Each structure stands twice: as C-alpha cells, then as structure tokens.
C-alpha cells in the first residue's frame, strides 16, 4: 500500500491558530510529520527595539493573550535585574496572584478545548462556563478579561484591598467544588478516557531528549517547574507541589493541567493569607542603565525565558524570548508517530501550542 500526504492547516477547523502540518499517512496511520511554522509571524521582537523600555511592558503583554501575564512578568524581571531594582514584598505576592489567576484560566481553556476535540461538547461548555469565574475575577481585579496589565517595571499596577481579597476568596470558594467535580469527570468519564488514554505518548526518555517543558514535561514524569527549581517573586515562601503524570499521553497532560489549576487555588489562598503590607511599586519611570540579563518564569505552558540587552538609551538594544511552545511542538513529531489521523488534532492540542508566542 502506498502512502499519501494530507495537509493539516495552516487554516484548519481543528486548529486554534495557524500552523501547517504535512502529514504522510498510510491508510489511517501517520507515518511522518513535517511542521512548517511562520504563519503568525508579526515581527514583534524587532518592534521591541523600536519602542521604549516602558512601552514594551504593554507590547510584550500583547504577544499572546493566554500567557499575557507571563511575558511582561519575565520582561520586567529582566529589566529589574539590569537596573538593580528590588521588588517590594507586597508586589512579589501580587505578581504571584496575577500569575496564578492567569494559570487557572489558561489551563481550563486548554482542557475545555480538549473535551471539544473529543466530541464531548457538553463538558466543553461546562468547563468554559467554570472558566468564566476566573475571567470575571480578572475583569474585576485588573479591569480586563485577558490583558490584565498587572506588571510594571519595579512593581505591580494593581493593589488588593480588603474588598478585593474578600472577592477573590469568595470566587475561589465558588470555583473549587466545581473544579474538583470537573477533575472527577476527566478522570472517570469513559468517553473522554477512551479517546485520550495511550494516545500521543511521549515517554520519559523522549521527553528528556526533546527538552520539553511545562505540563508536557510533567505529564511524562519530569518534575521540572521553574516556580520550584528557580523560585522568583514570592514562590520561595509558598508551598508549590509539582504535579506530575507517568504515562505521557494526552490524558495525563489534561490531568496535570487540571491538578495544577487546583494547586493554583491553594497558592492564591496562601498569598491572600500572607500578603504583606507596604508599597506596590514606583509610579515614576527611571533611566535603565546598560546591561544584559536572562530572566525566566513559569508560564502556563512552561518555562519562559527572556533575554534583554540594554545600552542606556530609552529603547532596549535586543529582546529575545524562548517560549515553552517552541520546545514542546518539536516533540509533536514523536507524539504523532503511528497515530491515527483522527487523533492529530487531539495530540496537537494536548501540548497547548501557542503559535502567537512562538512565531511572534
């Protein structure tokens, strides 16, 4: 029997963002995959050098809407290291709060899409409805559903008073039982398990070879989390249990994301309880000296690394970022090997690819 080639993408009903897969199939089985990137390239990296260091806080936030807190967070961390700015204690906790709220919303979005791709649309609607709780939290605390604008160089732009903390606590109390219920559905529902278990397997050894990060690595049994390995902000004072899986399949990755969302609720509660009083950061700009540094943080999709070089002028000389999806989509060729054509979309979504981040 001869093989033939199916193009999946760049515009495809099952893909959320433009990405082109040239899939060589033999009957129903995938024989090889060729991934072509570049369909969402907007030249943002070049643009950062044409904008001022302070303008770039907003620009980096708009690279991608799901990781829209992690990009400016890592960028601000890099600029703060160059300028020797120490983050106030309160701002460190507030940054964690912003990051974890975004993480819950991002993970719920991905597992919802996973249910949709399985064909279980009622579950998709249910998870998206649950995610709305976090969307409302973002809108209430930060003023926008996606671009929360929490970070600024040297601090944060928002503050939580007693009302804000009480609101956050009430919403978490509302979310927690529903999320626990959702985790049970993903763990026990036959329709979901039958389509996702043993599909798109990335073994522990393969995961190490590919250098995957984030929930993809943790689902393959690699307990790597920047929040624990290289704590930033207030993470060294918080209890962050790393969630790992063993099977490295589509199901494990969904469960790791759901468990992480559950852990994020606990982290948010710890932050709310320990939140120190004090300043949240300067409201004046300062001159950033020449220097270069690397900063990293744990975005919802994994380790996000920023390299920033400044020359003492208002604009940065170079800003470069290595996004988690860049590491994770390389592993797709291994995950898609010998997969069925009907599972391609499921497997692609299980690495939670962020094309906007990767191709900027």
């Amino acid at each position, binding site marked *: 029997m001869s093989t033939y080639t199916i193009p999946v993408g760049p515009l495809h009903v099952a893909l959320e963002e433009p990405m082109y897969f040239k899939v060589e199939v033999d009957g129903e089985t995938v024989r090889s995959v060729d991934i072509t990137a570049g369909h969402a390239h907007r030249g943002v990296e070049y643009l950062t050098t044409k904008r001022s260091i*302070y*303008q770039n*806080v907003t620009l980096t936030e*708009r690279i991608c809407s799901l990781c829209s807190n992690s990009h400016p967070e890592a960028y601000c961390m890099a600029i703060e290291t160059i300028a020797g700015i120490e983050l106030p204690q309160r701002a460190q906790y507030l940054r964690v709060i912003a990051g974890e709220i975004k993480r819950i919303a991002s993970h719920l979005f991905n597992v919802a899409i996973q249910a949709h791709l399985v064909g279980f649309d009622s579950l998709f609607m249910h998870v998206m409805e649950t995610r709305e709780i976090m969307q*409302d939290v973002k809108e*209430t605390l930060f003023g926008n559903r996606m671009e929360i*604008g929490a970070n*600024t160089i040297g601090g944060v*732009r928002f503050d939580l008073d007693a009302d804000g903390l009480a609101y956050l606590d009430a919403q978490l109390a509302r979310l927690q039982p529903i999320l626990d219920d959702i985790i049970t559905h993903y763990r026990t529902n036959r329709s979901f398990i039958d389509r996702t278990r043993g599909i798109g397997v990335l073994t522990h050894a393969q995961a190490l070879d590919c250098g995957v990060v984030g929930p993809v690595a943790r689902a393959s049994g690699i307990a790597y989390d920047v929040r624990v390995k290289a704590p930033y902000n207030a993470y060294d004072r918080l209890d962050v249990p790393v969630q790992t899986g063993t099977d490295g399949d589509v199901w494990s990755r969904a469960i790791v994301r759901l468990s992480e969302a559950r852990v994020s609720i606990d982290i948010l509660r710890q932050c709310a309880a320990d939140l120190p009083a004090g300043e949240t950061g300067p*409201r004046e700009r300062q001159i950033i000296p020449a220097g270069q540094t690397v900063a990293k943080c744990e975005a919802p999709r994994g380790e996000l690394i920023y390299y920033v070089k400044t020359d003492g002028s208002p604009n940065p000389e170079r800003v470069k970022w290595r996004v988690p999806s860049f590491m994770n989509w390389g592993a797709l060729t291994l995950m898609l090997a010998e997969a069925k054509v009907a599972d391609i979309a499921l497997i692609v979504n299980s690495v939670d690819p962020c094309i906007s981040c990767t191709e900027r």
Partner: protein
Amino acid sequence: MSFLKVLFRNLISGPSTDPFPFGETFTPKALRGRVVYDASKCTSCRTCEQVCIGGAIRFDNTPDGRRFLLWHDTCTFCGLCVFYCPQDALEMTTDWHLSHTQDEKFKMVEHGLMPKAACAACGAEYVAVAPTAKAFAGYEPTPEEVEELRQYCPRCRRKEAAKIAAAHPPAIAADPDTPEQGQS
C-alpha cells in the same frame, strides 16, 4: 453518567450568559474603558505620550493653545498613561461602549485644550498648563499657592514660586531629639 447531574443542574439554573443587549451586563468598577482627560490638571509633561505603545496620544500646538488628542481607535486600553500620569489628569472610565460605524471613526477621540493666556506679571503670551509643586524647590506649597502660579508664564512662575518659598524659610530642627526627615 455523573455528568447527567451537571446537565440536570444546568436545566434548572437556566442560561449563565448575560441578557445583553436587552439587559445589563457585568461591568466591574475597575474595568479599563474609555479614557477621559482633564486639561485643567495637565502640566503637558508628555509622560502619557511616551509610554503609549500604540501612539494613540498626541500633543500639538494650535493658535488657541496646546491640544491633547487621544485616539481611541489606536488605544489598547493598557492604562499605562493613567498609571504614570503624575497629575491624575487622565482617568479610565468603565464605559466600554466603543463600537461605532465607519463614519463615526474620527469622533472616537478624547480632546483637551490648554488655552493660551497673557502672563499676569510680564504680559507675555504663554500656554496656561497646570502648575506643579515642583517649582517651589524644597518648600511644600498649599494647593492655593500652586494654583496661583497658573496665571504666570513659565519664567514668572519660577520667580513667583521662589518668592513664596522665600517667605516660608525651611523650619530648622531646634530640638536635637527630633529625628531627621528623609533619612532611610
């Protein structure tokens, strides 16, 4: 089968979406919506123009005075201008009703004018931007004393501020037990 419980609960609780546009929708107080500008507070320092990534904010000089323009169709509603404005001249409202037809697109602008005036001391024509407490070099003026400077041109402002500051010599700590201010 446990998912049937969720479906049953949804049947009872009804739609979870807002009835917009036939009813009110969720609009929290912190929502970053349309920006409003108060020309009477603005010192024309242009911080907002410098932090705006979209280039939505412009200042230009007209025969009537200095004009502030905020182009809402280019604004990303990030709120950096509001955050860094030292005078609180910019404010974000919760008004998110920004959809408009093509012929209204040039009206989605926030305008403000800092008018030209004649200096009360030297008579020269100047743009009457808001005065700041910074001009008083060390002395903490009252809001009335700051406001008084508005009628003077920049050069006369410095003179008038110096006069007011000179009339209030800095209090020398007579009591040696009093801790010094400004030490960290």
